[in-house]
């Protein structure tokens, strides 16, 4: 009984994802089951939202990724008739649906121009969408011209997560392939989530286009001539500085240098969004000790966490403890991928 109850609750939560206009699927690392989840979403659409049109693409697939989820085989996506697909010319022959070509987009990936088609039958597709996250908006606009109500689904690359800011919500995929030690998986996941879900800055962001600003009652731009951001920022760190805004990546080495400054304490640090904070746990702890509060300009909405229990050999690893701990720590829905939808297509 308990299992069934849990299942219904899960399905309701996943169904909520269909309230968004666009959704991205972020993977914390290789083989975290993004494609498997995409398949589950497709299935759910068929049973619960038969009228809703899915528009599927991916971003920045660089070829290195080999989605080994189940039994060591790469999953393809089985889509229903009527689905819109944006994939590269070079992969069209690997899409076995009947294709109605809607548009050649002028957007390119490593595998050729991205083509938008409507599938006139059910079947398998392989997807490689735009290389640059900036192109996702253009692509979405083209899709909206064809189908204004479509749910735009973006399967994201593992290396960069910044694309997730281009969609209304992002689900986070994690799993046993991140680390052999599941405690480490838990730590990595919690930490990533901590960065992704950083709160919106209470102070309005600076208006200009500079890379760095300091806040002293109002934002003051920092002129950064060379790549050495610290040379410019260091001297500006007076006691009266209340906060810092950094447009690009907030890296470990940058924060390391900031920490050498005595004045770098009791202030807030604003990044563009959660994906720009490339900081390990240790570093965030050090920031906390200095009473540095992290904020973002554009908060990301992460409605749920998904756990892939299959290792590279296709072995299903028990993940109950992991999911329970994640749930407790995040107060977010955490689902194991196998519980969702069907399996056996791989």
């Amino acid at each position, binding site marked *: 009984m308990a299992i069934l109850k849990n299942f219904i609750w899960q399905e309701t939560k996943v169904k909520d994802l269909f309230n968004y206009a666009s959704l991205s699927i972020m993977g914390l690392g290789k083989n975290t089951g993004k494609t498997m989840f995409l398949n589950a979403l497709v299935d759910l659409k068929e049973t619960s939202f038969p009228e809703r049109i899915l528009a599927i693409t991916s971003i920045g697939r660089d070829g290195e990724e080999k989605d080994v989820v189940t039994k060591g085989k790469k999953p393809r996506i089985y889509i229903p008739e009527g689905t819109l697909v944006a994939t590269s010319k070079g992969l*069209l022959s690997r899409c076995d649906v009947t*294709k109605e*070509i809607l548009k050649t987009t002028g957007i390119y990936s490593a595998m050729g121009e991205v083509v938008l088609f409507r599938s006139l*039958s059910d079947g398998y597709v392989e997807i490689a969408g735009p290389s640059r996250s900036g192109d996702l908006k253009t692509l979405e606009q083209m899709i909206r011209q064809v189908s204004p109500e479509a749910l735009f689904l973006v399967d994201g690359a593992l290396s960069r997560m910044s694309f997730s800011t281009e969609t209304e919500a992002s689900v986070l995929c994690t799993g046993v392939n991140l680390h052999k030690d599941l405690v480490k998986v838990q730590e990595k996941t919690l930490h990533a989530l901590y960065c992704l879900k950083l709160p919106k800055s209470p102070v309005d962001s600076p208006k200009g286009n500079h890379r760095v600003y300091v806040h002293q009652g109002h934002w003051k731009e920092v002129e950064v001539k060379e790549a050495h951001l610290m040379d410019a920022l260091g001297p500006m760190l007076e006691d009266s500085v209340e906060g810092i805004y950094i447009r690009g990546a907030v890296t470990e080495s940058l924060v390391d240098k900031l920490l050498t400054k005595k004045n770098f304490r009791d202030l807030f640090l604003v990044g563009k969004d959660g994906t720009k904070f490339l900081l390990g746990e240790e570093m965030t702890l050090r920031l906390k000790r200095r009473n540095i509060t992290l904020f973002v300009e554009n908060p990301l909405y992460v409605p749920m966490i998904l756990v892939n229990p299959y290792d590279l050999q296709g072995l299903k690893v028990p993940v109950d403890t992991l999911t329970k701990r994640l749930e407790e720590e995040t107060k977010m829905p955490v689902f194991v991928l196998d519980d969702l939808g069907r399996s056996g*297509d791989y």
Partner: protein
Amino acid sequence: MRREPYGFPYVMELICTVSPMGKAYKRRLMPYQNEKALQEELRKTKAFSDHLRMVEKEKEEVRHLLSDMKDLQGLMQMLLRGETLSVVDLYEVKLFARQLRQMAKPLQQLNLEEKPLHSLEGVELLLDPEKEDLATFYIYEVYDDRLKNLREEKRALETAIRKAVDGSKRTQLLLERRSLVVKEEEQEEEIRERLSKALVPFVEKMQENLTLLGRLDFFIGKAEVARNYQLPLPKVSSSGPLSMVEGIHPYFEKILAEKNQKLTPITLSLVPGSTAITGANMGGKSMSLKTLFLNATLVMKGILPFAKEMSMPLIEHLYLLDEDQEEMKKGLSSFGGEVLKIQEMLGSLTLKPSLIIMDEPARGTNPLEGSAIVGGLLNYFKGRPHFFLVATHYDLKNMSGISRYQVRGLQDASLEDMKGHGEKEKMERVKELQSLMDYRLEKWDGEPILGDAIRISEFLGFSGDLIKEIRNLL
């Protein structure tokens, strides 16, 4: 030796092209060889630029369609080689034919005196067999009953797959589907082959259309520039001077406008033979030469000149020889390099008129020989059909039979009034000087006007003692 005038790329950028065909046409633009054809092209450009404001909406419509078009040259080559187009390629061909049809009406309203585009109705019939008039394409079932039956069978199977709850049953059905997919692909390929063959007879028309569209794109662009800058119709006639009234150099005009300065228009008329411009330093001689060179080049390429009026014969070659920074970097002696270039240029001349412009030739050698070289060049071109224009500081007073211009320079300005302003920044002084300079050219046959160079040196800061020594030598 410049073959492409300074500022030519800027003008090419002003001329907006929106399609890959238009951009290619622009890149390959050649000077006209035939007087009648050139006159006709210029006349049409002017006429359309005057007509533009009446058809603004239609022009934008045509341009919008052009901007969506792709260059199908590659696909046309594939068809000619007997290759089979992919479903995306066929989509591109269908879209092209459709865009052409949509363009027909606004294009007609533009009232261009251009060769009409070929209608591609036959292509549309092939690729839109059910006359749905959609901007999409797939391998339609009507192409072949076998395909229709196959897809129906496959669809039934897919429905069964959806309903299959049992995993192994589902796998079985998926395997069945797999074999149907292979058959469907074979069928589709056969149809694509058929369609590709059927498209071959249209290739010539489509290729011609691509060329015409490129020209159309460029033509609209240059007529728009002609309207925006209110450019005149130049007169091209075989016997006549090469003259430019109030010509400007649009690139320098832009640069000066950014500094809140105004460009002085240049008026100049050359007859076959030799013409010399003399006058003060900083008097804009180089600018005058560049302006004439640019405008003459534009006219030869069928583009209206940046001037109030312009007339010229058909010109075979256009050359401008000036101090070439690149050559100097290469370490060639500037004089040696110059001699070689002049030699090369002379070798290319025929009996048809060419325009040869030289900015202070032989400036790097001793003045006695330098002035003999310039004088010799002027005399050499005196009786020839070419337009030879030279700017020089050398003394030409003993020469006859050449036209001469003088930069007005500082003659009317009173520098002494300005000197009282005391210690100013050097660049401020240069600017002040520029504001006093009269850049206009005037016909002039008398003694060279001396003294501007010394007045300028004094104004820019030479000491009184030094100026005195200099004046003693004059």
